[in-house]
């Protein structure tokens, strides 16, 4: 029988013994968080976007922003080092990190960043206006699930435009990822410190910036959740026969003779597994309808797990494969008809993937080239550290002949490499390497975190603590350079938005809006009603005739040419087109006598094609 008085007394004594130390620890953590948040908020107003160079946002970030995040790192590491793990505190740190890293542009930018955000808003507007989908009119409309969902949400919430909330998508998506990441990491480790550190590293290493208002941003959440469900509740173990067949090398032989794997989550009951299987299929169905690439990443990962007997839901690859095939054949037939040949031709062209994903990008201004090189180094650095983590984690397991841990970690190893199989299949506009980095990132950061925490380690030596802190700071500094390296062309001013708005208000449906580049806030209205063209080469070459030819190539009701600040930045960064050349170009355009200025503000100018003057 419990003597509650005695227990209470013991608790009090314990609290008394540890109270001074606890107070000190909490004071240090609370101070770090408060200083961090306070300094960050004070520093935000010192970001002057107009002074940005081609190094992107990092060129205008005040040093105090970095110091504020340094304090957040300090708080996180101190919390990790506490004898008693306080997960709500770690959760708070991760939320603040997401706000600081992914929401840094929110208070200072005048309009939602990234031109694709505006295009996606246009597709939402398309669904709202047409209340139907015509897949043949645009490739995006072959996978419209995300846009239909957004249109529905906008209507229910009474939004005038989805752009009212689109700017918050990065923060929102990254907040969503936390739970799914925790599911994934906790499926392979009991050490929650290791899981939290892996989550922290995921956020400081995710420079890919696919979390904006986009199908892929939301689909990444589905990707993580689907893998989380499989890893938590559909864990399979390779059969003894399978291991005897494939674990033939001498150093692996013990795997087939050892005890059955130790499971962190025992097998679930049938009714619950049916419910979770249904849940998986619902998530997969939405993913298949809303993005062209993510379902393939899911399929590859699930297939790899199944083939190696790590997935007990063995029909899942077949189900996902059938969903993808059915969607492609019946709902995306328009896209397939026009692109199947080129898609098949892309298969296997590794040199082209490398060219489009790496070498082709090493072009442009000195600052931009530096950013691209830095991104490559950052990526290789993350992969290198992860490989080091794989080596040490597996070495320890092999040393102790811990077959359970080896097989458990092998699941992560499979998932860290399965998405690479996407590379030879598609160029994906030269972005496939970036996407593969993103798909593999959770597993890579787990192995990096395991360099710091072993499976059983609760406390780590100060030298490892210091190294973790330095790694975090280094990655965060790198994060701002890598993620926001193109910010000069990704951010838009209210003036630029006003200019495009002018076009939509004055140009009749069917009109043409030509521009030096696609990097401006366009297509957010009348998606299918207006024609947009991008003419970087004629602008750089001052080839006015070519521009006029474009304006008159078809019988547009009206034709316009827009130049905006972000486009000027694009041509400077990617084509080396000097800023001082814009004035002569505009003069030449007007001097042709075929254009008239119809709108201008400090950040944008619109010319209307008025045609040849009568002789």
């Amino acid at each position, binding site marked *: 029988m419990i003597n509650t008085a005695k227990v209470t007394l013991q608790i009090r004594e314990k609290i008394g013994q540890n109270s001074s130390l606890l107070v000190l620890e909490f004071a240090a953590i609370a101070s770090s968080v408060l200083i961090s948040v306070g300094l960050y908020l004070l520093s935000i107003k010192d970001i002057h976007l107009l002074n940005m160079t081609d190094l992107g946002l990092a060129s205008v970030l005040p040093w105090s922003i970095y110091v504020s995040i340094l304090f957040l790192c300090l708080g996180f590491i101190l919390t990790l080092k506490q004898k008693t793990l306080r997960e709500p505190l770690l959760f708070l740190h991760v939320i603040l990190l997401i706000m600081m890293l992914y929401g840094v542009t929110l208070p200072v930018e005048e309009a939602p960043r990234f031109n694709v955000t505006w295009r996606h808003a246009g597709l939402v507007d398309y669904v709202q206006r047409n209340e139907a*989908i015509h897949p043949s009119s645009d490739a995006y409309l072959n996978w419209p699930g995300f846009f239909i969902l957004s249109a529905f949400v906008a209507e229910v919430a009474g939004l005038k435009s989805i752009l009212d909330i689109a700017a918050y998508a990065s923060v929102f998506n990254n907040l969503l990822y936390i739970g799914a990441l925790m599911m994934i990491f906790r499926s392979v480790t009991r050490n929650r410190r290791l899981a939290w550190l892996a989550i922290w590293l995921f956020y400081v290493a995710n420079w890919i910036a696919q979390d904006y208002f986009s199908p892929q941003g939301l689909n990444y959440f589905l990707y993580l*959740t689907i893998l989380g469900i499989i890893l938590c509740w559909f864990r399979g173990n390779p059969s003894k026969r399978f291991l005897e067949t494939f674990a033939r090398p001498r150093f692996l032989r013990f795997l087939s003779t050892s005890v059955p794997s130790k499971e962190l989550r025992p097998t679930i009951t049938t009714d619950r597994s049916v419910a979770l299987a249904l849940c998986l299929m619902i998530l997969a169905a939405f993913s298949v309808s809303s993005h062209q690439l993510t379902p393939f990443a899911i399929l590859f990962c699930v297939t790899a797990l199944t083939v190696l007997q790590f997935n007990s839901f063995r029909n899942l690859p077949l189900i996902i494969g059938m969903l993808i095939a059915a969607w492609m054949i019946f709902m995306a037939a328009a896209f397939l008809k026009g692109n199947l040949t080129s898609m098949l031709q892309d298969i296997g062209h590794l040199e082209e993937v490398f060219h489009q994903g790496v070498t082709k990008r090493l072009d442009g201004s000195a600052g931009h080239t530096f950013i691209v090189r830095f991104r490559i180094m950052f990526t290789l650095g993350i992969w290198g550290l992860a490989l080091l983590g794989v080596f040490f984690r597996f070495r320890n397991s092999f040393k102790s002949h811990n077959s359970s841990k080896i097989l458990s970690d092998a699941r992560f190893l499979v998932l860290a490499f399965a998405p690479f199989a996407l590379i030879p299949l598609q160029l994906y506009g030269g972005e496939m390497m970036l996407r593969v980095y993103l798909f593999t990132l959770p597993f890579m950061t787990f192995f990096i975190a395991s360099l710091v925490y072993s499976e059983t380690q609760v406390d780590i030596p100060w030298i490892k603590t210091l190294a973790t802190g330095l790694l975090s700071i280094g990655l965060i500094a790198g994060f701002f350079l890598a993620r926001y390296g193109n910010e000069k062309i990704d951010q838009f001013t209210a003036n630029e938005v006003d200019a495009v708005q002018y076009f939509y208000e004055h140009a009749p449906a069917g009109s043409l809006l030509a521009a030096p580049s696609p990097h401006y806030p366009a297509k957010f209205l009348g998606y299918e009603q207006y024609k947009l063209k991008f003419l970087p080469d004629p602008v750089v070459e001052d080839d006015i005739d070519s521009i006029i030819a474009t304006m008159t190539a078809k019988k547009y009701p009206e034709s316009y040419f827009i130049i905006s600040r972000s486009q000027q930045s694009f041509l400077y960064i990617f084509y080396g087109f000097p800023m001082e050349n814009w004035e002569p170009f505009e003069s030449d355009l007007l001097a042709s006598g075929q254009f008239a200025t119809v709108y201008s503000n400090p950040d944008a100018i619109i010319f209307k094609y008025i045609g040849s003057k009568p002789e």
Partner: protein
Amino acid sequence: MNPDVLRFRWIWPGVILGSAVASGLFFFLAIESPLRLIITLSFLLVCPGMAFVRLLRLDESYYEWTLAIALSISLDAIVACLLLYTGFWSITLGLSTLIIISLLGALLQLLWTRPTFTSVPAESGTPTTASIPTLTLTNTATATETVMPTTSPTAMADLIFADGFESGDLSAWSSSRTNGSGLSVSSAAAVTGNYGLQVAIDDNNAIYVRDDSPSAETHYRARFYFDPNSISMANNDAHYLFYGYAGTSTLVLRVEFRFSKGNYQLRAALRNDSNSWKRGSWFTIADTLHFIEIDWRAATANGANNGGLTLWIDGAQRANLTGVGNDTRRLDHMKLGAVSGIDTGTRGAYYFDGFESRRQTYIGP
């Protein structure tokens, strides 16, 4: 089922109902307000999924929230897509469908959350449920459904002590011997919930937790989770994991752990009135998670010789030592950990979790 789950079982159905009604009002009455955005987005983001995910009774809130949000988003999208592709695009119809789906799930929650735990007034001198650091066995589906201590009035009197280390420290125990940081509560050791007991052996000093709750018990059952965690032991190294005492220092019950010919092994033993030990055979256990349960019984009278000890490993009876004359023995306190006899060849860490002791009934996994 955890009594808290019962106490708050109305919360989620209530939240879903409230959220559905509020969203419906904002939409159907076309109320323009910043609140509309917050309420409707919250509803669409959480409720359709949470209405059904709650039925799965997942053990961790982040599993629940993640699945609920992913499922909600997918259901919202699938409903919207179906309406659009079938030519019935209507926001009214879409929202109504989602509200019905959510309310259906909420209703199922209420119907399926049958109480298996009825709260009864604590007996005089018996701690209330709240004062007992109860073990939350919600880590597995089967555990959730079948393993929670059923608190009939008998069961309340039956329970002696339980601790799953979820307080994050050892404060629930009467005392502990930690030998620096050798004995600690850690997340790495967690089998159920967030924490477990980590026994890190780096010298030959005993480290353990002690519970003084038993009071001259004639029948004592204890169950705990044990994971050898690949602890390094020289061949034939052995030490004790569990001691049960009569009075202050008379050992009457023990569980021994050893490493022999590459295998971890366990055995249990009890002491009779004439101080000799009756031991069970060694039983090999895998280097994985196990639940160990012992049932110690004092003989009912002098000469009855009907005392005994039963050992279960993972629910299978492995030893049943009977016919012991131990009627003078009682159980007054116990120790769990590396309680004695540690060898120099034994170094590393193993884990305990989910300790529970009772007077009568089988405890189980």
